[in-house]
């Protein structure tokens, strides 16, 4: 027998007029507190706080049922993210957030999947997974908290540390040019959504994440963030000078309200469907391009072509679990495993 869903509908509460009252559900209202858990252990001033708040606001505004939402992370400061979200979460292995998220996506297509990684986590040890996750284009929102440094282990150079940056592993300054995650991502086959944003413009951060959330496919969002502990002045020039941020706007991208355009006057109209211009914009780093660089909703998604046809009934799940347990069971003589 089929079961009626208990999910709440994702709409804000409103007065149901009598005309549609009969079929208008009471929309369960979520508060920011419904998604908050624990006190973040991040340093005060850390950009992770801004991302956490923006994501919690997104969940509240989309009325995502906490029991239908999962956050997956790797290792690093930013990867503590799932601990502070009152949803399901997996704080996984270094660099392996994406394959785990992909597994969840295949097994439980009803869940909303979010991935949080740091620059070291995603672009270094997890680089292979990053490339293939972009190619597989499975529906999830991947956020890279990019502070250009390994913060949790106290200041080692990461792939995005700029040339010349002095760190514990590069005391005379980084020798190589930094990796540009945007141009790399835009070069991968099947790429479908690429955006870049900075943590110090909360409104834009929220808008970009919201667009990424609604994109049907793999949404890659690089969030440039401050590390007040190890690189306290690293981004100061960008932070203080609005001219060093280039806002990308378009009818099909982000629309900017006057609060933003008053402060940030460097604005470019960029059509997110133009991948060539997107690559040009992505290769610039000063001013920092901020907004949606590329979006294509017509790229095929792996989970649609390769979804499991078996019904995941509780009986099937139980059978699988029992078979796994049986592997570790010591059977008395004459008894055989029942679920093999």
């Amino acid at each position, binding site marked *: 027998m*089929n079961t009626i869903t208990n999910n709440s509908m994702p709409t804000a509460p409103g007065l*149901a007029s*009598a005309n549609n*009252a009969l079929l208008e559900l009471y929309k369960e209202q979520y508060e920011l507190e419904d998604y908050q858990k624990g006190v973040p252990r991040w340093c005060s001033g850390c950009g992770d706080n801004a991302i956490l*708040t923006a994501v919690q606001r997104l969940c509240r505004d989309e009325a995502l049922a906490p029991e239908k939402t999962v956050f997956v992370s790797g290792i690093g400061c930013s990867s503590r993210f799932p601990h502070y979200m009152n949803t399901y979460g997996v704080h996984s292995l270094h660099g392996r957030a994406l394959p785990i998220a992909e597994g969840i996506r295949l097994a439980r297509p009803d869940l909303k999947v979010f991935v949080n990684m740091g620059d070291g986590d995603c672009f270094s040890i997890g680089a292979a997974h990053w490339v293939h996750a972009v190619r597989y284009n499975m529906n999830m929102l991947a956020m890279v908290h990019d502070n250009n440094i390994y913060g949790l282990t106290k200041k080692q150079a990461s792939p995005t540390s700029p040339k010349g940056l002095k760190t514990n592993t590069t005391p005379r300054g980084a020798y190589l040019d930094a990796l540009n995650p945007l141009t790399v991502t835009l070069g991968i086959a099947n790429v479908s959504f690429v955006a870049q944003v900075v943590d*110090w413009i*909360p409104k834009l951060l929220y808008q970009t994440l919201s667009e990424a959330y609604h994109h049907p496919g793999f949404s890659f969002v690089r969030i440039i963030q401050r590390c007040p502990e190890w690189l306290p002045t690293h981004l100061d020039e960008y932070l203080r000078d609005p001219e060093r941020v280039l806002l990308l706007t378009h009818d099909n991208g982000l629309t900017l309200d006057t609060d933003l355009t*008053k402060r940030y006057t460097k604005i470019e109209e960029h059509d997110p469907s133009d991948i060539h211009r997107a690559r040009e914009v992505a290769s610039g780093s000063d001013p920092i391009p901020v907004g949606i660089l590329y979006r294509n909703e017509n790229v095929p998604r792996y989970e649609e072509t390769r979804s499991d046809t078996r019904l995941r009934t509780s009986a099937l799940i139980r059978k699988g679990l029992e078979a796994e347990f049986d592997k570790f069971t010591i059977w008395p003589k004459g008894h055989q495993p029942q679920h093999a």
Partner: protein
Amino acid sequence: MNAQDQIAFYLTGRTSISGGAQSSLEPFDRSYHPALFARYGDLTSLRYDYPMVLNSQGDLDRALLSLSGLVDEAVESLADDPVRDRIARHGYELEREIRSELSSNTMATAAGHNDFAVLWESAAKRLAQKDPNTVDSAKRLWAMFNANGELAHVDFAMPARVTKHVWNAVQGSKAKTFRKEIERLLLKLHGILKAELASSEEGRAPKRLEASMGTAFAGAFDFDVMSEVLVRAKPGVRISDDRRKRITLLIDVLEHQRFFPVSKEVAPYEFVFYRCATAVEAYKARRSEGMELLKALEIARLEVNGEYRESAEYAADGRLDHTALFEDFGLEHLDAGVLSALPDYLLCKYTSELDAEETLQIVDALSSGLPIKVLLQTDDLFEPSQTQTRLTNEERQSGLASRSRFVIEAAIASNDVFVMQASASHLFDSKDSLQRGFTYSGPAIFSVFSGVNAHARGIAPYLVAAAAVESRAFPTILYDPSSGAVWANRFSLDGNPNREAAWPEHSFDYEDESLQTHSEDLTFTFADFLALDERFSRHFAIVPKAEWNSGMTSVPKALSGNSSNSTNRLPNSIPSITVVGARNNLARAILDRQALEATRRCEERWHTLQELGGIHNSYAERAAAHFEEQLAAALAKAQVAPANAAQATAQTPASVAPQSTPIAAEEPAAAKEVRGNDPYIETPRCTSCNECTQVNNKMFAYNDEKQAYIADANAGTYRQLVEAAEGCQVSIIHPGKPKNPKEPGLEDLMKRAEPFM
């Protein structure tokens, strides 16, 4: 064969044919409901128009208010308040608490313990045990409501309570204008008599003069002499005996009338009735008195303006004098506007109490244009009409809401009666129509279905009432003769859902065995409405999932496929509706031919109404088809015309695509906002990084968006403000000027604060 079981059930309405094997069908027991009802297990968590506040404060247009609407209005007005979300949340919780209180405690509501203020306060007290801030939120919301009165939930008594409330409000405003006018006239009429008395000998008698002077100077005057002088000096103003008599009579009529009494000593007439005959009798008995009152008002107006022409004085100029005019004065001389100044008669009637005689009396009263407003409440749409009482249930279906329908149709046919039909669930939505009906100068009838039905499988009356509208069993109808002369202006079906379609359609979500969400569109038909009623359970049978087959189809498809003429043939498909069982499990129920035919009749009635309301009107469609034919013929002729026009358009230059170039911002960078000496934070730019809240969490706090604001500038020192400004990663804290001139190190601090000013 399972398909055979289904066909047999469809044709005979029986699950087992005698002598046959065990049927594969299961009985449609009490636990099943139409699928779209699955969402409404708990009505208290649904935000909808009820309970209504029967507001006793303010204007007529605020006579009926919805509790949800009041809360929303109040929350909206809190736009920038930092605790807006907290108050909103508490508002919703209070609403829910009051709803559950009202629905669980019907005895208390029936006993009249439903005062809005009392319920609001007690709900706040109960919720305060969980969150003490609720009391504050409740107080603030209450202050913004600006409304008080009783709360009305959908129950047996609700239609009458709401109708009486609106009637009272309309009569109240009528009474106010009427009394004001009567009091004004009485004052002036008394004034005329007093003026005469004051200038008469009696008025100038020494004793009277002495009394009017008061005691302080009584010894200083010789009132006898004064009286003589006054009487001699100026002759008194005398009014004619006729006029004095007339004015005395007018005063008597106005002071003792019982329509809108001006003094407490006069008992007012009762205008609410429960039997038509009594109402009509009362009207007849009071007609001449009302006539006298209106006449007295007219004469009094002429008198106080000095415009009354008495026969003796004015006969010479050839114009009709007023005395002669008013002698012949009768009802026929008054237009509806003047007559509607008097109170209307309200008749409240349950259709279950309506016998044939009274039905005709009501129709008669309405069509004779009596100032009567009728509330006709139906509790059971399937109650038989007087002639149907001996028929079976199936035959009764064709007489759906037959008692009220007869009156409504007769009223519409009489052309100048205001008619409104609405379900209890839609009364709030129809409140404007309700007011228009009561202020309408002619007779009006309001037919309301309460939804309170003992056979409704335990479903709340609100839902039954709403389902009646959704299923077209009791459509919302409005006929307003004051809206214009033509039918298109007068008749409206606007209050019905998807009024263009045969049946309303809604999206229905569910999860399957593997927890995957599915969505499908379900129509809500009259068959679903029948399935709500226990009396028709035997016309439905549950088909277990294993027995589902391609021969089962939806009711609308079955209606379009099987015409009623083909009843003798075997059906191509069996109509079914989607239902849910006690465990919220999906199931399908097939219906038998009788239920399908009842649904067809309901659909046909709805089509007739649609035509009346201008939807899919057959005359209009015929005219449109005719016009299209003409247009096609004209176009065929035009094809031989020269193609110059086409060439001309081909030469239009193509538009040039705009270049993707950087664009400048529309406005120049705005100057920094000047906020005086107070500290402030540019809250929308806050990145929630905890820097300032760690400096002093009393001074800096997060709002509901988790962005910082200055909660209390006096909760810390100026030093803390400056340190927070320095620590802020995005430099959005502005410390302002120090408030305490004695704070140590102030000079240094002010220097440090300068970059943030």
